[in-house]
């Protein structure tokens, strides 16, 4: 949620510290900050605090507790005014479990027009658009104290026009009902989505808790308005937003269940602001509040419990201070605290919630690290070691391990919402990916293998046939002389006939625990990571006759220096010694080295011509290095 520091400032008498200090205070004691702008912070308010902190008042209250600076005035603690009792409208709530409270006020003789500059600036500072003074006022109050509000044009309600009370109903949508929203979208309403309706005309004027309808839209010619401040069930609103794909500031707040008590404060502030900037008189306020909440029970936590969960050493005084700063009404006994959380802190229900308050407000840096007590006996890593023992055997036989995606073009288990629509299923076998990886590996071979070597790959991963998932092992071949088949038999797996292409080993039935329980997996160490280029490479071989005593490393060094940074790999792949023959003077033990250079750029595809330049340079250098050396064509 975007908040403006200037807006926060109005909650405090003394100037707030800089935006950077505010950001740190929140980061280490409350919320992650996603972005810091000029006089603005984008705060990541998570679901547990969305009921009270998607508002400037909520954030100000947090800052007050963290920085220990009192609020000038807390809008949620002042007394509520007595609203005029004159009957203004009648509201019928069909299901009090879906609409927990509905307050509606009739305000007559307003002047709809542009908002004053301060209001426009406040809304723009948090990325909202100014619409008109009535709509802006309702948005302002929502962003200020967290209560979503809405305003309707009273003259567009049928019963009002007829000269009597506005009659509204809060009910579920019926089959086939439609609504045109304020954004001019015509929506079909699935049955059950909660609506605000004009009871007389039996037509929807708003999607409850989500968005208003165009039927009762406020325009510049509006004279009398109905202000709605209500509370709707979180699950109902969340489902409506999802099924209609309509996610709004209002639905975001309602799905996190703010207290119905908040509605009265929202109404108070909205009426005060509207009459101040748009004129008008409040005729009356209706308040349907079927199940007034009981007084919230206290949540009790002992000092001992707080310190035993955190592993800390906080004193009674330090804990007391946290609850005081948070504005929690606390009764203190000899060893315990009984906290009555304020209505907006719906997240405080169990002792652990209070433990978290102490931990975060005091700061987690105050907790010193402690080593776990030592463990009796040896931990059970048998199954893991069984799998790793198999991997070690495969590696010894020259196999290289790969890891591939679990998604596939076809399979028995299909995703309802695949990320890649060309691979909507879960793999039933490791075969396809393994073969594709082998094809690619063959292309890369010059980069990593000598010409005599070839790739043998394996993967161990979960596959999902309809009978149920299991851990599978597949390899690209069965190895020299069927060696792997013998190894597999040693793992307690059934023998299989046929070629590598069809063989697959179900590790979930192998006796992995037995196989692994006394095994220590071989230690491997990864050296520094060297990024590789994604561009194609060019291979150039250079062979030369050298004298008997010439060392390969010396030749390689010359090649390396002259090949330059395009050479990703240089290695000796062949040594040939010419046998001495009576009729061949050249055959006197002269030897030949053959080196491979793998040339590749990190920025682009190398051209043949560029590779040739490198080759020529290397050849020239070799010829010049030693008159006995002869580069072979």
């Amino acid at each position, binding site marked *: 949620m975007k908040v403006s520091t200037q807006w926060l400032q109005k909650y405090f008498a003394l100037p707030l510290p800089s935006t950077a200090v505010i950001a740190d205070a929140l980061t280490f004691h409350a919320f992650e900050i996603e972005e810091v702008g000029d006089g603005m912070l984008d705060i990541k308010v*998570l679901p547990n605090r969305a009921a009270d902190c998607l508002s400037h008042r909520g954030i100000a209250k947090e800052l007050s507790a963290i920085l220990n600076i009192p609020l000038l005035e807390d809008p949620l603690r002042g007394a509520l005014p007595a609203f005029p009792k004159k009957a203004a409208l009648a509201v019928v709530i069909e299901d009090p479990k879906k609409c927990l409270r509905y307050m509606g006020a009739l305000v007559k003789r307003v002047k709809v027009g542009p908002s004053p500059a301060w209001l426009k600036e406040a809304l723009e500072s948090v990325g909202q658009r100014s619409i008109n003074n009535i709509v802006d006022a309702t948005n302002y109050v929502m962003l200020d104290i967290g209560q979503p509000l809405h305003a309707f044009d009273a003259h567009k309600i049928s019963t009002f026009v007829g000269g009597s009370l506005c009659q509204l109903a809060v009910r579920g949508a019926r089959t086939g009902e439609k609504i045109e929203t304020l954004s001019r979208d015509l929506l079909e309403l699935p049955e059950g989505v909660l609506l605000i309706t004009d009871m007389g005309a039996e037509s929807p004027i708003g999607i409850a808790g989500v968005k208003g309808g165009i039927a009762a839209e406020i325009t510049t010619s509006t004279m009398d308005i109905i202000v709605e401040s209500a509370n709707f069930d979180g699950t109902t609103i969340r489902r409506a937003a999802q099924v209609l794909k309509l996610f709004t500031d209002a639905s975001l707040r309602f799905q996190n269940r703010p207290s119905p008590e908040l509605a009265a404060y929202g109404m108070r502030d909205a009426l005060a602001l509207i009459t101040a900037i748009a004129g008008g008189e409040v005729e009356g306020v209706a308040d349907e509040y079927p199940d007034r909440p009981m007084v919230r029970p206290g949540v009790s936590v002992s000092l001992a419990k707080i310190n035993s969960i955190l592993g800390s050493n906080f004193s009674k005084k330090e804990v007391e201070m946290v609850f005081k700063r948070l504005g929690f009404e606390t009764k203190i006994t000899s060893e315990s605290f009984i906290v009555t959380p304020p209505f907006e802190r719906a997240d405080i229900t169990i002792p652990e919630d209070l433990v978290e308050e102490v931990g975060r407000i005091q700061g987690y840096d105050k907790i010193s690290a402690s080593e776990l007590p030592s463990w009796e006996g040896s931990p059970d890593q048998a199954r893991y070691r069984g799998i790793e023992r198999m991997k070690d055997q495969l590696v010894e036989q020259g196999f290289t391990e790969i890891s591939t995606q679990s998604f596939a073009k076809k399979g028995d288990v299909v995703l309802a919402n695949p*990320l890649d629509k060309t691979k909507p299923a879960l793999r039933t076998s490791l075969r396809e990916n393994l073969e594709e990886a082998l094809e690619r590996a063959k292309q890369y071979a010059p980069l990593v293998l000598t010409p005599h070597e070839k790739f043998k790959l394996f993967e161990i991963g979960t596959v999902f046939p309809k009978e149920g998932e299991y851990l599978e092992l597949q390899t690209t071949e069965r190895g020299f002389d069927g060696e792997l088949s013998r190894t597999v038999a040693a793992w307690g797996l059934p023998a299989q006939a046929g070629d590598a292409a069809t063989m697959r080993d179900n590790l979930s039935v192998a006796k992995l625990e037995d196989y692994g329980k006394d095994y220590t997996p071989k230690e491997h160490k990864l050296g520094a990571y060297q990024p590789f280029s994604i561009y194609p490479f060019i291979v150039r071989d250079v062979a030369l006759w050298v004298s008997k005593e010439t060392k390969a490393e010396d030749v390689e060094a010359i090649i390396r220096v002259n090949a330059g940074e395009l050479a990703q790999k240089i290695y000796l792949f062949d040594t040939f010694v010419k046998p001495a023959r009576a009729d061949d003077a050249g055959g006197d033990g002269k030897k030949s080295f053959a080196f491979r250079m793998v040339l590749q750029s990190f920025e682009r595809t190398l051209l043949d011509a560029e590779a040739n330049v490198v080759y020529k340079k290397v050849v020239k250098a070799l010829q010049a290095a030693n008159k006995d050396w002869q580069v072979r064509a």
Partner: protein
Amino acid sequence: MSLGRLHPISIAIREIAEIFDRMGFGIAYGPELEDDWHNFTALNVPADHPARDMQDTFWIKGEPGKVLRTHTSSVQIRYMEEQVKKGITPPYRIIVPGKVFRNEATDATHEAQFFQLEGLAIGEDITLAHLKGTFDRFFREYFGPSIKTRFRPSFFPFTEPSIEVDVWFEKENRWLELGGAGMVHPQVLEHVGVDAKKYQGFAFGPGLERIIMIKYGIPDARLFHSGDVRFNYAFGEKLP
């Protein structure tokens, strides 16, 4: 015949498994295709709760109660249920290096499938201070002695208090976010049949590729599971 090469993730898991072995942690497993109970409800994430929006889930066609697991935390539930069934009470200490799935757009730092390193330690006196100590020791042994850690407040439905852990990276002179953790929520313990009045403890679940990427300076998460052998050879591997 030359040796083959293990996948870098296997090598990393070995190193990590060894570090945690010495701290008393066993290794547990669970299915990748999970049910709603183990992946969400048992972990205090009820149906229709906005907390479910914190993770983008892959759902299964024709099977409404099933998901591809979004985290390895589901194995915490399976492991504890199994122990309770066998009549084994805490202390419990396990890690779960396992594949998880998130329906999120992929880029250099995000993959739809990746590994998490789940950890769980439950006992009579396991505290948040122990969580700090466990991370400190793990990071010192895995990243190096100059490492520093810090906790920031966060929220997960299955832990209370919940924190995010950052690690100070000397090489880059900044703090790097590693992942979430916290004290296991008493509701979770109750769901699996462990007495929450007697036992408590911590859980963590950072992304494994992220840990490895930080250690070696690997630029792109997509290198791990694309079946590209060049990745195995991109490290100057030192064999014992």
